[in-house]
């Protein structure tokens, strides 16, 4: 069975992929690059996918891998203490969330540790099942859930102004 054509795949997924990418990077230019690189890989290898219904999962996995590749020189991911997340199960106050605009929401998400950021981004951006998210991120479902819980706990601290931001470098050119 022939797979979906390139134009259709781009039309269906370039927006969600870009939003996932900017949630990971906080940089429009980097997010555009990641989205373009993902479709470049799709153009080269997408035809090898036997099940066309897996196109979305394939694209998100590829983008996430490309993101990790760009970060490969960083030291290992920071680990939050589990006790912190156990004590403070996340409830982000609705009024705090309502105060943000879209880009401020991305900025807040960008302050979550890198390891937890992708699961949290998919938690909000995509209505996938947890198994689908696990497939996209190539980790077991239990790991997805624990990373998500820790990431949401960090996000709560960001909203409360207690979470230490990642080192910030430079600004917009």
């Amino acid at each position, binding site marked *: 069975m022939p797979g979906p054509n390139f134009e259709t795949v781009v039309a269906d997924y370039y927006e969600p992929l870009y939003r996932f990418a900017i949630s990971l990077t906080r*940089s429009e230019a980097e997010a555009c690059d990641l989205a373009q690189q993902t479709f470049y890989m799709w153009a080269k290898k997408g035809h090898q996918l036997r099940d066309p219904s897996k196109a979305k999962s394939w694209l998100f996995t590829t983008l996430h891998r490309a993101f990790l590749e760009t970060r490969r020189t960083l030291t290992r991911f920071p680990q939050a203490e589990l006790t912190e997340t156990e004590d403070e199960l996340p409830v982000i106050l609705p009024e705090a969330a309502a105060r943000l605009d879209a880009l401020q929401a991305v900025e807040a998400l960008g302050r979550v540790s890198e390891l937890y950021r992708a699961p949290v981004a998919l938690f909000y951006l995509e209505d996938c099942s947890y198994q689908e998210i696990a497939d996209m991120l190539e980790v077991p479902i239990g790991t997805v859930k624990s990373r998500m819980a820790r990431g949401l706990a960090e996000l709560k601290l960001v909203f409360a102004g207690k979470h230490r931001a990642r080192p910030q470098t430079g600004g*917009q*050119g």
Partner: protein
Amino acid sequence: MTLEEAKQILALFRPGTADEKDAAFQEARQLAQSQPDLARWLQEHCESYLTLRRKLRSVPVPPGLKEQILAERKIRRGFFENYWVPWLAAAAAVVLLVGIGFWSRSPHRVNAEHAAYRKRVTEAALRGYNMELTTRDPAQVRRFLKTKNAPADYTLPSKLQSAELVGCAVLRWQGAPVSMICFRSGRPLPPGDQSDLWFFVTYRNAVPHAPSPGATVLARVNKATTASWSDEQKNYLLAAVGDEAFLEKYLR
């Protein structure tokens, strides 16, 4: 199920999704119906989830991104996937052989692969980017780029050294690192902009069909003028907001 266990489960609950049919979530939500504190907690969780979801899904996508993705595909398909018409390739090879002497010396040689690279990096600079290091110290820039595995042993055009160094960042082109060194010409800049001159360096094998050593290619990308050249190991690209005459002030 205790209240704490229910909270731990419900912390990952997403209203309006398949989670509503999940047995574990259903059990925890049932418990919330008889526990006012848990019910209030769940209501806040759902409200903030829906608010943040709406906001993150409304992040604007840059205009032209879709067209650029499609355009790059056309460039590749046009150049690399027509292997089924070998006679066309043979004819092109003949034309290339005849014209190569002139072509390789032409200052305005155009190549699709390199054009896509030029468009991508220049538009990234024009759109706005995350300046990863802000400094006026050229040595610090080189050290930083080296730690990022990006080209750091580049040769700056001597005239470009008269411009004020602002900082640098690392972009990527098909997985390969691209050093972006940012300068300021001294002209007034629009609010929020830090630079109007960008020097890009990538390894020569990262962009096939880049200008041959000794040739300089000038091209427009939106409101910028670009000049591309290369040496044995690297491709260089200088982009500036302005016309050819302005760019020439920083070449050589």
